[in-house]
């Protein structure tokens, strides 16, 4: 079966210890509910950023509709857990699957578009989903969906965040992931080297959407309440900002970006009148002094570093 290298065992060990410590601190009350909320939001943001990075950073398809996939996952999970009392694990998987199906449906017609045009098409898709949700009474329409059971906790968030990172990392470091990167670099050359560009773009979209759907499920089952406007255009931009801030083509960047920006915006909530100004200034600073993002270096993930041989 699968053998682990010493480095992998150490990483697994470190993760387990980290999980156990945080878990203990939550149980002992050292981490209060406000801090716990922030930790869970960080986890959700990491999942969203890493999955968007697969689409935008690695495959080079500029998407402004990531929140829509999150919304599909959130509503799916809300319906399954609140209306049909299904177990959380099942609703998480189905949330991801629904979002992935939506990703394929939207991907097939739009992914022949490039750059700005794709951005506008995905933006339109995001709006369609939002307006649909506003007008379906079964899911509460504009009033929102209430009384969703709160299943999301530290364990679910931690497990799914780690799983997302590992699976997307594995995907990127396979020949499928290399094909996606080749499409980003030069689509014609990629095609001539035997890569079916349409297939891989839709695949990246579907995988990205799947994890965004999972993030949506975590979100819905943490906050009891969701409404269509939580998953609007601005949410998509927020996720994109995390990806660009941390560094496109870098998973580590998306993780660091999600942590940093969640903490910053949580601190700034104390001074609401200056919040957006300071937030924007920080983004300006990063873009001027580190145009490729905090950890904007693909070499951390693809290539450059020496590969382990297992």
């Amino acid at each position: 079966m699968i053998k682990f290298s010493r480095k992998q065992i150490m990483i697994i060990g470190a993760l387990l210890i980290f999980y156990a410590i945080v878990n203990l601190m939550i149980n002992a009350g050292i981490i209060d509910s406000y801090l716990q909320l922030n930790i869970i939001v960080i986890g959700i943001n990491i999942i969203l950023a890493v999955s968007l990075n697969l689409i935008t950073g690695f495959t080079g398809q500029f998407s402004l509709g990531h929140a829509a996939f999150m919304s599909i996952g959130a509503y799916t999970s809300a319906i399954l857990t609140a209306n049909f009392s299904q177990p959380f694990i099942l609703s998480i998987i189905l949330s991801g699957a629904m979002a992935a199906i939506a990703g394929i449906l939207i991907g097939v017609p739009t992914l022949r578009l490039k750059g700005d045009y794709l951005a506008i098409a995905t933006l339109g898709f995001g709006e369609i989903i939002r307006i649909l949700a506003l007008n379906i009474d079964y899911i509460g329409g504009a009033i929102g969906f209430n009384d969703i059971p709160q299943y999301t906790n530290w364990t679910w968030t931690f497990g799914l965040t780690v799983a997302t990172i590992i699976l997307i990392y594995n995907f990127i470091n396979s020949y499928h992931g290399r094909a996606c990167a080749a499409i980003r670099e030069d689509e014609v050359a990629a095609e001539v080297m035997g890569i079916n560009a349409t297939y891989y773009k839709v695949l990246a979209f579907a995988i990205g959407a799947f994890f965004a759907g999972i993030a949506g499920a975590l979100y819905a089952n943490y906050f009891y309440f969701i409404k269509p406007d939580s998953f609007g255009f601005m949410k998509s931009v927020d996720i994109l900002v995390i990806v660009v801030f941390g560094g496109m083509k870098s998973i580590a960047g998306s993780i660091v970006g999600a942590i940093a920006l969640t903490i910053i915006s949580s601190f700034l909530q104390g001074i609401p009148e200056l919040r957006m100004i300071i937030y924007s200034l920080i983004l300006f600073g990063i873009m001027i002094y580190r145009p490729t993002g905090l950890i904007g270096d693909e070499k951390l993930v693809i290539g450059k570093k020496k590969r382990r041989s297992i």
Partner: protein
Amino acid sequence: MPILEVNNLTKSFGGIDAVTDISLDIDAGDIVGIIGPNGAGKTTFFNLLTGLYTPSSGEIVYNLNNRVTTRDLKPHRMTSYGISRTFQNIRLFQDMSVMDNVLIGFHSGLRYGVPSALLRLPSYFKSENRTYKATDKLLDRFNLLDKKYESAKNLPYGDQRKLEIARALAASPRLLLLDEPAAGMNPRETSELMELIRWIRKEFELTIILIEHDMSLVMNICKKVFVFDYGNLIASGTPDEVQQDEKVIRAYLGEEVEKC
């Protein structure tokens, strides 16, 4: 049986015929040159051969492992048929490492599915290890092994050309199309390239079609030469025959003005 048969191939863009009614056969194992002045339709011809353009009329037939006809020509299927190419303006994956560029060349030879990749099942390790080894071997043959972690864009020009050929060979083609491999090279690099192409043909048992402006290269290594002018095939034959051909001389040097 010729490895490639082209029958009455025409491609027009709007009212302009870039390639007009070209018919030619190419035999397996040869190095064949395509020459002609700028705008003669050579690269258009390559793009037709690799499915990047759809012919306006005419037929392309490959006799490789299977018979491949015009209808089957899709760019992303070419490597699986055993056809690989390079580009006139080098099209490497610039921001990726030398190694990753060649790894991508192996794409059509890899089979494990997305679940194996996500979960790193044994088939993943088996294929990947084999591919990494083959990549190192190929880079070593092209003297690029010590640069394998460098970004492709940081390589010297000659190495970029070499890397593009290495990437094309990673797909283990039986027919290799080289679009101006010597463009921008100095005479020393060109003569090295000549040796390299000869060696590739022998080592990998390939048929090579190359477009080239450098006459010394074409005349030295090509067994047969096709001359294009304004989209027409105006001459074909051995390098010596072509050099004597009146039409070719006219295409390159212009017509002699008659004295009155």
